[in-house]
């Protein structure tokens, strides 16, 4: 009896790997959500060229509305890109909280006049991926955005599409604050640290290559004034690379931290690490706006090169 039963047990193991799941479910590749008086969403499934759209009143109805429109059970776990149009990030937050999307799903905020379906068809997802790979834009996912908005400063940097071009923008969860310059985008990438080569040129001049960059941020407070010390450890063959990197990081901090009191590079956590008290949201933003920024560049030591 037990041998017979063991054979019966092994039998269904021949069919693992979720093949029935794949057969019966549709996997969304792109999801575009527009917020207005009513929320509308469109999806493009993997292996399908057509878009399926639906309107609904609350985000909770999103899966049901799209499923009834497509006639199939939908899964958002393999999303390549989540495109948002509108002021708030509530849809992204809801999708994440309800376990509908993975936290590492990339997000793109689109300008109000952009047609998201056309953008999706023009391989905006691939363009965004290569921009992040090349270091033109900082990496950003739905988990990071929601986490940044929940942080004390309550602002986030995210990719922004305007006129079909990709930029990085600063958002406070309710409105778009600014679109970052190209130099500031580079600064954001360098502040985050980068192990791949970053190639760029400033004002059409000679190409600069930074092979590797590590950033270390220290915070200190004296008489209510915050001092942010950024040490960039750079590996590059060119002598001008260090200065260019410092300029980029300076631009990044000026356009985000010093202008709006944003905290895009874990300054709150650094403050706790170095024993600086983190006050309430508004006070913390003011503290960051009035901070003193010190940037120094040092060559990446042989130990770090390994």
């Amino acid at each position, binding site marked *: *009896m*037990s041998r017979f*039963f*063991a054979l*019966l*047990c*092994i*039998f*269904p*193991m021949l*069919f*693992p*790997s*979720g*093949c*029935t*799941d794949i057969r*019966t479910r549709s996997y969304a590749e792109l999801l575009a959500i527009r917020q207005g008086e009513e929320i509308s969403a469109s999806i493009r499934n993997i292996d399908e060229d057509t878009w399926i759209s639906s309107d609904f009143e609350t985000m909770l109805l999103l899966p049901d509305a799209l499923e009834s429109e497509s006639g199939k*059970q939908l*899964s958002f*776990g*393999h*999303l390549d890109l989540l495109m948002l149009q509108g002021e708030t990030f509530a849809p992204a937050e809801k999708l*994440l*909280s*309800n*376990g509908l*999307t*993975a*936290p*590492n799903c990339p997000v793109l905020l689109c300008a109000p006049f952009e047609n998201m379906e056309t953008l999706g068809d023009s391989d905006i997802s691939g363009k965004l991926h290569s921009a992040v790979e090349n270091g033109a834009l900082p990496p950003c996912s739905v*988990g*990071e955005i*929601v*986490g*940044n908005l*929940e*942080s*004390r400063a309550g602002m986030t940097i995210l990719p922004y599409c305007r006129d079909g071009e990709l930029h990085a923008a600063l958002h406070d969860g309710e409105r778009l604050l600014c679109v970052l310059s190209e130099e500031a985008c580079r600064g954001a990438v360098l502040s985050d640290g980068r*192990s791949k080569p970053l190639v760029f040129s400033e004002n059409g001049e000679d190409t600069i290559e930074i092979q590797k960059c590590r950033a270390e941020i220290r915070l200190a407070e004296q008489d209510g004034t915050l001092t942010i010390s950024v040490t960039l450890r750079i590996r590059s063959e060119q002598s001008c690379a260090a200065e260019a990197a410092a300029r980029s990081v300076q631009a990044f901090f000026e356009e985000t931290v010093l202008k709006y009191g944003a905290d895009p590079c*874990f300054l*709150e*956590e*650094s403050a*706790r*690490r170095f024993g600086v008290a*983190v006050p309430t949201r508004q006070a913390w933003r003011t503290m960051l706006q009035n901070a003193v920024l010190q940037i120094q560049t040092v060559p990446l030591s042989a130990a770090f090169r390994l």
Partner: protein
Amino acid sequence: MRVERTNSDISAVELAALLILCRLARFFCCGVPYSISYAKNMFLTGVLQALLLLPVFLWDKPFSPPRPICIAVQGLAVWLAADMAADCFRLLTAADAPNPPLTMILLLLCVFYAVSLPRAAVFRASLFLLCAAAIAMLLLPIGGLHSARFLSLWSNSAQEHGFGLEWKESAELALLPFFACRQPKPVKKAAAVWITVRCTVLPAVVLFGAMQCGRLKSFHGNPFMLLLARVPFSDALRTDGLWLMLAVGCALLGTAFLLQTFCGSQPRVPKLFLQIGVILLPVLTILFIKHDCDDRLPAAASAVLTLLQWRIPRRTAE
């Protein structure tokens, strides 16, 4: 001379494996977001629980506990088994597994079948599953080291984060004194292993998860699933099938172990029920595969059952 063990004998390794498996099952199902406070509280509760287990370490003479205590322990065991099954159901729902109620029926049939087997079979299966879990846990840091962010450890989180829950999640420990009365020596070793794992491996996974999830500190789904989604081995929330199988397997064996504690050394599961289970189980599995259900879970059940079938020792007279 080789000494045959009786059906009710427990070796230290087997008991430790089952206790760790129960804790792992609850860890996979737990909804507390990972943070440094949670890791600290997990370590702290582990130390406090070790202190509470001191009498178990000091006691050497075996004795039979009074009947009211046995009844209380059996009641606790069945309550914990029900709680673990409920946790498993929550996990299935959180992982978006299709048709969780029907899947639970299948899993419960597996549980009852496991309960009907000699304890040694459950112990052996749990050892195998624990080895698989250990290998999988080792793969986590290898896969996610590059995306870990050390600074995330200083993210804002409440100091008492997860402290109370940790006591509930380790409730299986309350069964240890009961086992210690009968077999003090193996239970001492098992408790030592359990405390070591509990105070090192699990807080380390929580710390690693805290480094992966950045500033996501409020509840945004099952934190273990969030951690898996960040490591490259599972590039989406729905492709972590092996982990789900492991979690379900842990819950299944943990529930069986607790129910066996309730049943005593000689489980008295009605033969007719067993026969119905044996016939229904493969039929249900095939039905599930044919009707849009997630076949990872029947696969998990079959894997556990196959482990249970592996060289079942003969029942020996006690």
